[in-house]
């Protein structure tokens, strides 16, 4: 049975939700793919309902990778322009980091440390499904471990994961 998918406008919003980095990064920055406004509005609905976000500590490792992709595509431009491309890039990354911290500050949240047990569970999920990336599998492993079925993600791989309540706005 595939994931049970939800529109971002569906109510009520879940009180606990595992947030994949794809959702958080799209809610933060507009990369021109049309996901930013819906993701941001759903994040605002979660904030307004004081929902609890659950995310893996890996988000802080995935962030610079995302900033690099956005910077290279021209979607991440620093407010403070430097004299050279290197300064621009460093400014852009540090402004994006500040945005991420400011975003998370608005939520009740738990940061989940990646334990060996979670890595084993993620490893099993990658093997089981065949289409999940390790990072996506980790979000599903966190969801299983905590008993929180709701996952916010803008990554199409989640659509065919059994037993989850997927908040993807039906966009992927």
């Amino acid at each position: 049975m595939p994931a049970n998918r939800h529109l971002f406008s569906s109510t009520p919003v879940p009180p606990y939700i595992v947030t994949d980095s794809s959702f958080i990064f799209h809610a933060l920055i507009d990369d021109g793919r049309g996901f930013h406004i819906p993701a941001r509005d759903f994040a605002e609905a979660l904030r307004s309902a004081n929902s609890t976000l659950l995310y893996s500590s890996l988000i802080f490792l995935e962030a610079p990778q995302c900033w690099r992709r956005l910077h290279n595509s021209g979607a991440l431009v620093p407010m403070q322009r430097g004299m050279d491309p290197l300064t621009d890039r460093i400014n852009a990354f540090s402004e994006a980091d500040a945005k991420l911290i400011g975003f998370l500050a608005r939520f009740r949240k738990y940061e989940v440390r990646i334990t060996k047990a979670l890595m084993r569970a993620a490893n099993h999920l990658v093997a089981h499904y065949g289409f999940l990336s390790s990072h996506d599998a980790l979000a599903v492993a966190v969801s299983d471990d905590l008993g929180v079925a709701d996952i916010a993600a803008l990554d199409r791989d989640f659509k065919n994961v059994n037993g989850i309540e997927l908040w993807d706005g039906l966009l992927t």
Partner: protein
Amino acid sequence: MEIEKRSRHSQIEARLKELASKGEVSFQDRTSSDRLPEIKLKRKSRLDRVVKVAKR
């Protein structure tokens, strides 16, 4: 239904507390009650362009 929901929430909180005691999760309450900032789009939407052309 409401009782069932509350019981599920207490199970989640209990699991989170258990993991927090082992240092496997860390809790942070919100430190800002501000709304998420509205981001001004850099690009004009197709609708904006259509309206502009129609006004000419």
